[in-house]
C-alpha cells in the first residue's frame, strides 16, 4: 500500500445505522426480488396486453418498476450521505 490510510473521522456521535430513510431504501431494493421470485403470482396468460400474455408484459413492466425503485434508492442514498457528511462536521464539498 502506498498511502497511509486516512485518520478515521472522530467516531463520538455516530448517527444510528438504521434510520427510516434507510429502511425505505432497503424496501426499494428488496421489492423486485419479492415480485420476480414469486413466479406463481404471474404465471398466467390473461389478461393480455395488445395480444401479449400477462406473463410477458408483467415482467417487462417490472423492468420499468425496478428501475424507478433503484432510482429512488439512489436519490435517497445520496441525500442520506450528504446529511451524514454535514452532521459529521466535515466541510462538505
Amino acid at each position: 500500500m502506498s498511502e497511509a490510510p486516512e485518520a478515521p473521522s472522530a467516531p463520538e456521535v455516530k448517527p444510528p445505522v438504521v434510520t427510516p430513510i434507510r429502511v425505505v431504501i432497503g424496501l426499494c431494493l428488496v421489492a423486485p426480488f419479492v415480485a420476480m421470485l414469486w413466479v406463481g403470482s404471474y404465471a398466467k396468460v390473461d389478461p393480455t396486453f395488445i395480444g401479449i400474455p400477462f406473463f410477458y408484459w408483467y415482467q417487462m413492466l417490472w423492468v420499468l418498476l425496478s428501475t424507478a425503485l433503484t432510482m429512488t434508492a439512489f436519490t435517497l442514498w445520496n441525500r442520506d450521505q450528504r446529511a451524514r457528511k454535514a452532521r459529521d462536521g466535515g466541510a462538505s464539498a
Partner: protein
Amino acid sequence: MNDGVNGVALAVFIFFFLAVTVMGFLASRWRRSDNEHTLDEWGLGGRSFGTWVTWFLLGGDLYTAYTFVAVPAAIYAAGAAGFFAVPYTILVYPLIFTFLPRLWSVSHKHGYVTTSDFVRGRFGSKGLSLAVAVTGILATMPYIALQLVGIQAVLDVMGVGGGEDTNWFVKDLPLLIAFGVLAAYTYSSGLRAPALIAFVKDTLIYIVIAVAIIYIPIKLGGFDEIFAKAGEAYGQTNPATGAPRGALTPSEAGQWTYATLALGSALALFMYPHSITATLSSRSREVIRRNTTILPLYSLMLGLLALLGFMAIAAGVKVSNGQLAIPQLFETMFPAWFAGVAFAAIGIGALVPAAIMSIAAANLFTRNIYKDFIKPDATPAQETKVSKLVSLLVKVGALVFVLTMDKTVAINFQLLGGIWILQTFPALVGGLFTRWFHRWALLAGWAVGMLYGTIAAYGVASPTQKHFGGSSKEIPGIGEIGYIGLTAFVLNLVVTVVVTFALRALKAPEGVDETSPEDYTADAGDKGVQVELPPATAGSGH
C-alpha cells in the same frame, strides 16, 4: 436455409465490420494518458470512463452476441422457460447497487485490477486469491468461445459458412479473419477498443430491435396471431421426449426452476471477471451507482428480443439448430440490406464482449498467477506485456476450442462456468461487507460448491445428451427442481459459516487485512484516491 450467398447482406455486414476495425485501432489514441505501459492503462482504460461510456461498455459486455442468439433460441425451443433472462437482469441491478460501489472504492484506493487482487488484500491469502482467479479464467474461456458460435450462426445464415462438404479452411476462413482482427486491435488498444466499438454495437442493436418489434408483428398479423400460433406449436408433442414442446407460461413444477435460475444467474453475473473489468474502468463511485439506474434499459431490450423467439415460430422458421432461429427470422422477414445491418449488430455484438473477456482473463492471469507465483518483482511494463500476450493466447484457445470441438462442448462448459463463478460470491461480496468469514473456511466452501456443482451438472441427462443436459436438478431436501448453481452456492455458504465457527474456536491464523473500513466508501477526490493511478501504486498494493 438460403443456399446461395446473400450478397447485399454480406456487403453491409463487411462495411460495418471494416468500420469498427478502423475504430478499434484508432481507439488507442482516444483519451490517451502519459503512462501507456501500465496494466491500469491497457487493461482498465486508465480508469477514466464516465457514466455514458461505462453504460455502453457494460451493456456491450453483459449483453453479448450469444445472449442475442441464445435467449430467443430458448424461447423458440420451449417457450416461457427461456424468459427467465428478464427477471434475471431485473434482479442484477438492485443487487449490484449494494456492493459494487464498495468494490470500486477499495479497488481504487489500493490499485486492485481484479477481484482476486481484492480477495488477497482483504484476507491475506494467496491460496484463496488463486482459487478466485482460476475460477474466473475457467468460467470466461468458454464464454469467449460462445461469442464465436454467435458469429458462426450469422455467417451460416448469410451463406458464407460453407456446406458440409466445403474444405474446413474455406469454411472457417471468415471466422479466422474476424478473430485475427479482434486480437490485433485488443492487443494494441486494450480496453479502449471495445469501449469505443460498443457505441456502434449498441446503436445497431437498438435500431434492429426497434424495427423488428414493430415491423415483424405487422407483417405477421399482430401479437394475438403470433402468440396463438406459438401456443399451438408448443402444444404439439415432441417425439424425442413424449411431452409437449413447451408452454406459454411456466407450469407449477417449472416455477422453482424459473425463480432459482433467475436468482442464481443474477448473483453470478457480476462475479464474472469481464463485468468487474468494465466496472473498475469507471471514473468514480457515482458513475457506478448511476449506471445501476440506467442499465435496466438493456433488460427491456432483452425482453423485446426474447419475443422474437415467438415471432420465429409464427413466421414458420424451421431450423434444427435453435441458434439459427433468429438470424434466419431476420433473413426471412427483412429486406436484404437491413438483414445485413441486423447481422452486423450480432457480429459486432460478439467482438465487444470477446475483447473485454480476454482482457479480463489476461489481467487475472498476470496479477494473480504470474505476479503472485511466478515473477513477484515484475515491473508494470512487464505486467502489461504479459497481459497482452495472454489475452492473445486466451482468444486463440477459444478459437481452437470452437473449431475442433463440437459446439455443445462450449455450451456445456459455459453452463458449468456459470455454476463455478457463483462459488466466488461469498469471498468477494462477503469480503466487501465483513471480515468475519475465515479465509480457509471460504476456501473450503468454494471447494465444496465447485465439487457439488460439477458432479450435479454432469449427472443431468436430456433426450439429446447423456451428461450436462441442463442446469437444473432436484434440490436435496426440498424436492423441487432448481438451478444447480444456486444449490451449490447455498451449500458453499453453509460450509463457510460452519467452518468459520470451527476455525475461530481453534484460533486459526486469520491473515493480514490491508484494507480499512473507510476504504470501502472512499470516492474520487477523497484523499488517497487518485483519478489516474501512477504506475508505482498499481504495482505496490501488496
